[in-house]
């Protein structure tokens, strides 16, 4: 893969990786199920933006579709668990 990255790209990727690790830390630590769900939700949003950025780096327009799916559907998984917690499902 002939991927040419400039310094800003590398910095951005590094920052997003650190953000993902922080989210995952909360996922591991989170004392309650809700904390973990929230961490997973934040990870989903972060990953969606990471996918858009990687799509730009690979220069493939169609890769935006996957990020679109995460943006549109990502919240339904959270609502499922939220409804379960409030006794709704």
């Amino acid at each position: 893969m002939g991927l040419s990255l400039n310094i800003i790209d590398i910095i951005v990727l590094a920052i997003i990786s650190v953000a993902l690790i922080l989210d995952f830390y909360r996922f591991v630590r989170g004392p309650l199920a809700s904390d973990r769900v929230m961490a997973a939700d934040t990870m989903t949003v972060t990953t969606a933006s990471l996918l858009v950025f990687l799509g730009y780096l690979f220069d493939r327009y169609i890769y935006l579709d996957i990020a679109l799916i995460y943006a549109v559907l990502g919240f339904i998984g959270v609502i499922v668990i939220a409804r379960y917690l409030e006794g709704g499902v």
Partner: protein
Amino acid sequence: MKKLISIVFLLYVAYQLFVVFYAVPFGTDEVRSKVGRFYLEHSPKDLHVANTVTSIVVNFRGFDTLGEVTVLFLASTALGSILFRRREVHTRLSHLRTSVEASSIVRVAGRILFPLIVLLGAYVFIHGHLTPGGGFQGGVIIATGFLFLLLAYRQFTVEHRTIMWIESLAGITFAGIGLVGIFVGKTFLENFLGVGRLNDLISGGIIPLIYIAVGFKVAAELTGILDTILSISITVDETENQTEKNG
């Protein structure tokens, strides 16, 4: 001790797998088999399909896909047959799906976002031959949209008769397109339409038609399954409560 042994064993297995896979030059031309090269060459050239995976799934191995769709249909039917009696009890016992209503924000969001989710699903399966995705993925997205409605509104249920009709019609369309292939050409699911220009919406012959049928079928099946299992989850509670009160 047991744990230690299992961890050591797992690490050994992981190491061996690493050794094996490290030797394989993934992603280079050496591993591409004859079949793979054939697909890569012929799918844009003969069929004018931008998404090679689609052309393999629907055209070169279309019969396989028909089998998969049938498996999904069987699974949904089997689930329905197991849970049917429970459903009957459910409709008799309770007028509401759940005890706690969703918050009004979620309900209003359901009104606005549901059509947009369905539109995205339609986009994914209609553009299956141009962009990633296809019938199955589009159907799953539409079913997720219905899941959102089922979660947000506790009175909302899906009309199972309509679902059955959509499902059957989509299945018949798929098989019918295949049969037309027999009559026009030689084989089942042979392409009988013009292939169009690469990267146009009207291209790839029968692929978009089949994907639309598959999309409808998968969406209908999954929606039916979701509605069934969500009703069941209430039914168990309700029947338990009922027996407690009566007994």
